[in-house]
């Protein structure tokens, strides 16, 4: 447990000391802010919700996760520090969980910065806070799953760009599985839809916390973290 903390703190510090995280956060805030404002303007300020932010945010968070996680393991390989991490008395599971939690802290920080959208609404109007809370829960869970996918992709290569592309590929494939599900017949369609990253998010936006959705996002997170751990173990068997 202590080791997980040491590694996640190191990752968080490393994010905060490099320009990358700030640039990505700035872009995220800029884009979601624009969508947030244009949505409000579009409804003539009658619908005081964060819909605009969420519509853009759910896709942007996938990109954000891919960029945030791409260096986590790929860079260690390139620097040779992977050899250090794998020879100190720390379990592979602790390495992966530490890295995951480090990136999750960064993502959570970024999400906290967007809280000024609902706060603005509360100052100037009377938004329904229920859906705001559930939406943030949804974004957080979607973020967890995306980060786990990104971390897994990073564990496959020593090239950050390759890691980002692989992560993007998996994320968008899982995202658009929902659309494929709409066209596939019967039971197959339902399964595809259930497996899609995008299927479960609208519930959260509507203010519904469906156990199935929570379980889905947590399972995806666990599955990809597990695969990242296995991928680390296989490294020793090259």
């Amino acid at each position, binding site marked *: 447990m202590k080791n997980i903390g*040491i590694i996640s703190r190191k990752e968080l*510090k490393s994010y905060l000391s490099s320009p990358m995280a700030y640039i990505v956060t700035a872009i995220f805030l800029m884009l979601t802010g624009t969508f947030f404002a244009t949505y409000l303007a579009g409804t003539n300020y009658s619908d005081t919700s964060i819909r605009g932010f969420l519509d853009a945010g759910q896709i942007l968070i996938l990109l954000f996760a891919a960029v945030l996680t791409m260096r986590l393991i790929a860079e260690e390989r390139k620097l040779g*520090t992977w*050899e*250090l991490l794998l*020879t100190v*008395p720390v379990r592979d599971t602790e390495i992966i969980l530490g890295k995951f939690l480090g990136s999750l802290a960064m993502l959570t920080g970024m999400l906290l910065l967007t809280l000024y959208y609902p706060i603005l609404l509360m100052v100037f109007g009377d938004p329904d806070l229920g859906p705001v809370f559930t939406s943030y829960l949804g974004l957080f869970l979607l973020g967890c799953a995306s980060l786990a996918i990104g971390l897994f992709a990073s564990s496959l290569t020593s090239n950050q760009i390759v890691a980002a592309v692989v992560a993007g590929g998996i994320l968008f494939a899982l995202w658009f599985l929902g659309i494929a599900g709409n066209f596939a017949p019967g039971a197959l369609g339902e399964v595809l839809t259930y497996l899609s990253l995008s299927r479960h998010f609208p519930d959260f936006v509507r203010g519904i916390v469906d156990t199935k959705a929570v379980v889905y996002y947590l399972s995806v997170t666990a599955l990809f973290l597990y695969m990242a751990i296995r991928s680390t173990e296989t490294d020793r068997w090259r």
Partner: protein
Amino acid sequence: MIRIQNLTKYYGKRLAVDDISFNVEKGEIVAFLGPNAAGKTTTMRMITGYLMPTGGDVWIAGHNMASHSLEGRRLIGYMPEIVPLYTDMTTRSYLDFVARLRGLDKKRTKIRIDEVVEICHLEDYIDVILGKLSKGFRQRVGLAQAIIHDPGVLILDEPTIGIDPIQVAQTRGLIKELGKDRTILLSTHILPEVSMICERVIIIHEGRIVAGDRIENLTTILKGGNRIRLKVQGPAEKVTTRLARIDCIQAVAYEKPFHLVEFPADQEPQAEITQAMVQSSWTLLSMEPVKMSLEEIFLQLTAEEETGS
């Protein structure tokens, strides 16, 4: 302290380490010597738990590295061939990170950082970003992180490569100093280094151990023969032919002003040589046994392997 048994490693189909076994006893400094691609790094990676062997076992103080890897890893300090530095960290934050992962608490970490910084002469670089360090100082930080937890076993993969002569001398002195109360296995392909810091050498070539012994013994064992160096007052060429005529002498070479004669280990040609010189009325100025230098051993070993296989 380090016990290695029938260790084998295939990279895919490529055999990198071929069934090697050896021990390093507590308190020994042992050199792992071999040309490029001999399998030194691969072996060290298996000892430290970075790579799993294809076959065979590694024990560190009785802990099997396959089944009790964490216990084994706790006892080892490891300096990999590529010094593992986070280029965006300072020396201090890096040593702190490694120390914490090595299980040191906050207080002990602070004390140990001060100690290793002094030992490795890093005082002026303690707050410098690692990416900006020169090669020699990167090596020093690599060594500092390897000893931060005061390990009983040190595995050093080419610790003196790429640093200038003065720093090399310093580093060698440091390793010798560290070896007083630690078990050290270090790899190198610099021969003089071996006789300077090590008590024993294990020579590896194409994944196999071709020799392993105390440095003094190695010469005779390998060679199966001995050499004597003569200084003779007389015509060099004639002396050479005369020496060659002596029965048990296998080879004669003239390296001004000496004649070198080679003979099997079980023979003693000294008396015959003296007699021959006296008969030809040349004066024998000196006669002394020659130890083969490690360099020659090394060349010979690797050459024999090639012709033998």
